[in-house]
């Protein structure tokens, strides 16, 4: 009996202890749960997904790992990058040629992975330049920019590139309408003179090479975003527009008056037929097509002089308008290809159009007038439903594989989860702050991976250690595998992450490039072995054919360069081992250094202005004797007769 009482007393005494322990545990799991574990990738292990995020006003494209949120690479695309020499070297500077001359920067918005049968295939990724309209193609074998095509008759290439189901095309719609062809007119003559264009850029399925196949003239609205159809809606592409008021000043008020603006639905297969039937008119145009030649890996520019233009008035059945409230931003097609979700950024509801209803309405001619030969379909005839209370300022929607949609709401800073078909909101989660686009891994394809969602935020305010007035942009990783969305991780991003694409890592890691092969080096100034290294001078042009291998340059002593000479350093990295780049930097270099990958030849120019001795060295820590990887250049006065001499002292 006494023993029993003792045990009871002991138990009562221990109870609060148990409670305290239990309490401590549950309060911490309320805060973060297993978030830390979910985003932890063990040192030396790989992330499950790649995420390619636009670099916004940096003009570049960044590569992150998900779920860790680690930054792996910034791929130079539209902006010069002195770190690698992109846009400075003789091999890359042609990439940035445009009809406006050489442009060293842009504003990159929407990455789009190439697709096969509606799934990301990992061949290429496209991204648009918003300011000087262009589309770039990045090769995912070596993660380098391979091509940039300028888009004529366009200004503000925002609704772009958004590939079709088999990357038959990438698209480009104009944010700003313009006189076409561009000319000096009274701005007040907007309604009469300004037009928009919607461009279809054909992608060669083997080489990836782009060609501006045709443009469609469209009313002078502001075209915003786009998506291609998939499955049953394959063959169509959808473009949002705002400013159907056609205002040319104070757009924030004057372009927000109409209850409904339009989604343009383009039947591009029909457009192809019209082009074949000769309905397109060749218009004079001026635009650049820059691409890296496969053999030499040297970028070339071609100046293009015409573009084929289709006028909807001559092409019935090619384009229709779907009335959509109110200044819509995103236009997103669900994985089945049936639903077209519009993010009306000033609307109180989220309208969802039905592709099958749209086809019926077209067949039944349920029109409500037309604009410039484009029939306007009746809203009720195409609308499948409206999501009530989708947050304030709904912008953009992506999908999971379970029939849910996720919409970003800019003003109320939240992600809203809702069900396709019932249109009811099932969950919402705050984001920090002011989300623009969001991205579900594969959420724009036929088979999304409903595991993670990345919120791409415009404003960070107090989320990170402050860095003065200018703060980082940010992404947030959200777990969407369960019923309730869970915030897992904040991570900073470069530029402004307008949009991103996610792809399973193994699609890219099964076939990627470690080195460029020496025997494939087709650069006309390549030096294939150290014994071929030399310096050649013709007049005041001096060409240095230099090799780099651990841990020396050849030649590393050069004399006979004179003030007034233009020196071309053609540096070939002879290494054939993964992750052994060499750098090249000369004191007083006015353009950039070189970063040369194994098997690559890169060229930088130098015009010395003062006589003297100029050291050069390898700027990428390559080996134990990296500090020794250096040399001297002797620069003599213009009129001196110092002979040209070079070598490694042998």
């Amino acid at each position, binding site marked *: 009996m006494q023993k029993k009482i003792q045990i009871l007393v002991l138990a009562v005494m221990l109870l609060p202890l148990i409670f305290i322990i239990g309490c401590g545990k549950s309060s911490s799991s309320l805060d973060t749960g297993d978030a830390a574990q979910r985003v932890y990738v063990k040192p030396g292990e790989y992330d499950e997904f790649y995420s390619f995020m636009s670099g916004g006003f940096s003009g570049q494209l960044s590569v992150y790992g998900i779920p860790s949120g680690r930054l792996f690479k910034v791929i130079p695309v539209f902006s010069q990058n002195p770190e690698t020499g992109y846009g400075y070297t003789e091999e890359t500077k042609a990439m940035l040629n445009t009809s406006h001359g050489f442009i060293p920067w842009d504003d990159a918005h929407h990455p789009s992975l190439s697709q096969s049968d509606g799934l990301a295939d990992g061949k290429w990724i496209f991204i648009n330049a918003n300011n000087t309209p262009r589309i770039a193609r990045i090769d995912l074998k070596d993660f380098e920019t391979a091509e940039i095509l300028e888009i004529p008759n366009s200004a503000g290439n925002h609704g772009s590139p958004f590939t079709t189901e088999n990357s038959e095309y990438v698209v480009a719609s104009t944010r700003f309408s313009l006189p076409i062809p561009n000319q000096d007119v009274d701005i007040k003559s907007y309604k009469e003179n300004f037009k928009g264009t919607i461009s279809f850029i054909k992608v060669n399925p083997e080489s990836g090479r782009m060609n501006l196949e045709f443009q469609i003239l469209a009313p002078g609205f502001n075209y915003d975003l786009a998506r291609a159809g998939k499955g049953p809606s394959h063959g169509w592409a959808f473009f949002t527009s705002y400013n159907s008021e056609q205002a040319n000043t104070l757009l924030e008020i004057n372009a927000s008056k109409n209850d409904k603006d339009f989604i343009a639905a383009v039947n591009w297969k029909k457009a192809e037929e019209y082009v074949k039937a000769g309905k397109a008119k060749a218009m004079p145009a001026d635009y650049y097509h820059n691409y890296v030649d496969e053999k030499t890996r040297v970028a070339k520019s071609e100046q293009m002089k015409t573009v084929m233009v289709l006028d909807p008035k001559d092409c019935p059945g090619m384009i229709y308008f779907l009335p959509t409230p109110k200044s819509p931003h995103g236009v997103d097609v669900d994985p089945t290809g049936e639903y077209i979700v519009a993010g009306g950024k000033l609307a109180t509801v989220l309208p969802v159009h039905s592709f099958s209803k749209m086809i019926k309405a077209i067949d039944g001619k349920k029109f409500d007038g037309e604009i410039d030969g484009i029939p306007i379909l009746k809203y009720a005839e195409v609308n499948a439903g409206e999501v009530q209370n989708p947050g304030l300022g709904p912008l953009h929607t992506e999908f999971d594989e379970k029939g849910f949609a996720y919409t970003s709401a800019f003003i109320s800073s939240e992600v809203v989860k809702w069900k396709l078909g019932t249109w009811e909101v099932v969950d919402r989660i705050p984001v920090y702050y002011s989300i623009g686009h969001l991205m579900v891994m594969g959420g724009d394809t036929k088979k999304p991976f409903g595991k993670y969602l990345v919120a791409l935020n415009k404003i960070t305010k107090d989320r990170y250690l402050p860095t003065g007035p200018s703060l980082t942009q940010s992404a947030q990783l959200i777990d969407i595998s369960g019923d309730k969305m869970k915030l897992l991780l904040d991570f900073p991003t470069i530029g402004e992450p307008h949009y991103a694409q996610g792809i399973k890592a193994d699609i890219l890691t099964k076939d990627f490039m470690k080195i460029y092969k020496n025997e494939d080096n087709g650069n006309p100034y390549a030096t294939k072995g150290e014994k071929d290294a030399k310096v050649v001078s013709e007049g005041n042009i001096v060409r240095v054919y230099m090799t780099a291998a*651990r841990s020396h340059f050849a030649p590393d002593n050069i004399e006979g360069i004179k003030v007034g000479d233009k020196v071309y350093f053609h540096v070939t990295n002879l*290494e054939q081992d993964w992750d052994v780049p060499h750098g090249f930097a000369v004191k007083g270099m006015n353009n950039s250094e070189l970063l040369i990958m194994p098997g690559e030849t890169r060229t930088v120019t130098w015009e010395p202005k003062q006589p003297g001795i100029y050291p050069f060295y390898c700027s990428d820590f390559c080996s134990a004797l990296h500090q020794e990887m250096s040399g001297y250049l002797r620069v003599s006065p213009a009129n001196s007769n110092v002979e040209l001499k070079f070598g490694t002292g042998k």
Partner: protein
Amino acid sequence: MGLYIWINKITGEGPNDLNTLNGLNHYIGMKTIDEESIPELVFMPYIIVTLTFLGLLVAYKGGSRSILTLIILIILLGVVGMYDFYMWEYDYGHNLNPDAPIKVPGMSYQPPFIGSKQLLNINATSLPWIGSAFIGMSVLLFGFSYLNERKNKGIQA
């Protein structure tokens, strides 16, 4: 990274391993491994072909004495071959360029004959491969048939 030493050539495990290895070996002043400087790669195939024909002849004719002779011949040539290989390893490991950037007092870089050895920060491993396995197997088979032959003789006698 790996090297395969064939009877008639030397190749890398990866397409660039041999070049990269030669490139890195200059730090310790090791000679480049160059097929043309190794005459064995030219005459060894003839020896192997000759041995193969001899083997076929012996297999056809039989006779315990000729089998035994062949076994001894193979083993003898094998020992000479291994000694030769050892001498090459010794040469590569010890005969270093005095201008080498990395000189560690008392250090030589002879790879292990069979097995693993730590050479500075590199763990070098040498193992016999398919060719040696075949030679070993042929010696075993001949050995077995030699015993068999002897046994048969014993029964007959």
